[in-house]
């Protein structure tokens, strides 16, 4: 079903050394006393028409990455290029124009729709902002979008509270689609939904991608969801990318010990099948004061001395397979992830 990605596909979104720190303020004068390094030096690319899955446990910074790319949160450092355009250095009118091309679907379908606005207004807000003053024209697009996401035309006059979670998520998707974007961030779009609804929404997202050809940055914590939808996958741990590769090689040959532990935790449908479960020790350390060297080393089952001293670089250890780990042998030539 899923089309495998040709290697020569064009890069649409290039993220280079992205850093997002949140200041921690204290005292009477609210001075900055420390930084939470939510995203620390993350680089990856999203290609034309592909789905890039970003996985990691809660608090690892994956949502922050997606929001920083869209400039909903200010970046601390690094750069993001969309079609060669430097996203962090745009004048306000250029940024507004860019927003047509980059949209977002949120995790929580209850907080992502304005409860005081009818659904039609929610979907067409972007059209109005981008200069479509004629309400008949806007209405026509709203009807079309509702149809595309599997809702009825009369739903445009309803308010968000009249819909179920799955329907609300469809409204959120319709809003993202209305501007006809080329890139959509899906920030855990199914994790708040029932399992039966999850697959409906995932299939809708895939069908829409086939129809319109846009790229997704798909953020999730559920590895089976990511396997279902992604072409390539990036695994994050504590603000850093530890592994980036195609879906096939990630699930067949995970190289980073963290990825291996994550994959071993996926429940299998067959209760008789025994599988070795890698149980990680301890808790995720605070991003306020991350461990030295490899951030994973305090919990890593195979950590050596070097791991606590040097920060591993994300390197191409296998073709199309980038890993940030000192202990993974390089086969062939190593190149940095973004060139």
């Amino acid at each position: 079903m899923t089309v495998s990605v040709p290697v020569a596909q064009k890069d649409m979104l290039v993220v280079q050394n992205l850093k997002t720190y949140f200041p921690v303020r204290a005292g009477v004068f609210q001075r900055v006393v420390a930084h939470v390094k939510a995203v620390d030096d993350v680089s990856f690319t999203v290609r034309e028409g592909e789905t890039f899955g970003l996985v990691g446990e809660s608090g690892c910074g994956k949502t922050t990455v997606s929001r920083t790319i869209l400039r909903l949160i200010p970046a601390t450092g690094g750069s993001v290029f969309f079609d060669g355009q430097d996203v962090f250095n745009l004048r306000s009118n250029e940024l507004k124009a860019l927003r047509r091309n980059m949209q977002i679907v949120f995790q929580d379908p209850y907080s992502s729709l304005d409860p005081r606005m009818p659904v039609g207004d929610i979907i067409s807000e972007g059209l109005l902002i981008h200069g479509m003053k004629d309400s008949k024209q806007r209405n026509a697009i709203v009807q079309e979008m509702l149809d595309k996401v599997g809702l009825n035309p009369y739903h445009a006059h309803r308010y968000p509270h009249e819909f179920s979670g799955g329907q609300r998520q469809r409204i959120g998707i319709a809003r993202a689609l209305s501007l006809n974007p080329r890139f959509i961030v899906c920030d855990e779009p199914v994790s708040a939904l029932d399992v039966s609804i999850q697959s409906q929404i995932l299939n809708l997202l895939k069908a829409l991608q086939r129809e319109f050809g846009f790229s997704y940055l798909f953020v999730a914590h559920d590895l089976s969801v990511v396997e279902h939808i992604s072409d390539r996958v990036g695994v994050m741990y504590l603000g850093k990318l530890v592994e980036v590769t195609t879906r096939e090689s990630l699930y067949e040959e995970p190289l980073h010990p963290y990825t291996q532990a994550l994959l071993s935790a996926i429940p299998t449908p067959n209760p008789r099948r025994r599988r070795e479960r890698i149980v990680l020790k301890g808790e995720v350390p605070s991003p306020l004061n991350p461990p030295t060297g490899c951030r994973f080393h305090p919990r890593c089952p195979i950590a050596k001395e070097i791991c606590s001293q040097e920060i591993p670089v994300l390197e191409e250890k296998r073709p199309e397979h980038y890993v940030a780990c000192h202990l993974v042998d390089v086969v062939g030539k190593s190149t940095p992830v973004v060139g």
Partner: protein
Amino acid sequence: MTTSATTQVGKAAVAPSEMTKALARPSRSFWQDAWLRLLHNKAAVAGAIVILFFMLVAVFAPVLAPHNPLELNSGKGFLPPMWVEQSATGKAGTPEFILGTDNLGRDVLSRLIYGARVSMVVGFIPTLIIIVVGVSLGLVAGYWGGSTDNILMRITDVVYAFPDLLFFIIVMTALRATAIGQFLNGLFLLFVALALVNWVGVARLVRGQVLALKERDFVLASRAVGSTHMRIMFRHILPNSMGVIIVAMAFLIPGAIITEAILGYLGLGLRPSTDPADIFITSWGSMLLEGQSAINNQPWLLLAPAIAVALVVLSFNFLGDGLRDALDPRLRE
């Protein structure tokens, strides 16, 4: 011809198909829902009716008042209400003065009717100023945060820390003789004093609301499609804060009416007028002051304005409770 043709076309374009028509029940907005919930609340509806009644009384006072409230009916002072056959001083009520007369022979009912004007104006006008100032500053502080927020919130802390009644008394006493103290028989000064004290509560309330709302995903979504800050503030955050603002308003009004009554009783409110051209001749607070000296023998002079104040304040509180329940269903139970 042309108009009907276009409406026909317009209707045909949006008309749901046969199948969906059955499902398409009328959709209710938040405000329609809230209105229906309010109508189901008997106390709130009763309160609203009483308030409406007093508003009409205030507007049509000259028509409704049976006597000139300034007219001194010599020899007819201290008459009890019409249903009292013999007062402590041996006088009998007459239907001419339904609620009796005061020491100077002025009709109590007529004065009560004119007094409604002051209470209504004191209730609504300062509240409008408070809402406009409080909402604007609360929006700005909450939305922009940072040092703007810090400065505004420290100012509200200072205003909060000052005892309200003491402030009113000082202002009304100190500025009584000045031009603004004279304006509208002292009412204008009262408006200013009320607004100065009460905007902080609204500003804080709105700020808190904005802080919570601006982190919601629908605000981010609106930014992601390219909304300006102005649009986000006025199309998303303000409409979602209207509920608490309206409820705050419903409780500010009775507070202002009580304050006027207290200040009037202390002789610091509206100064009683003797000029028939004045719109505001007397207030319920001033009537309380005039009535208290005769409390043993002529209790109606005190009871009439006291009951009027209590009734209006109670009605506003009922309406406020009803509005709160209607606008924020989560607060019920």
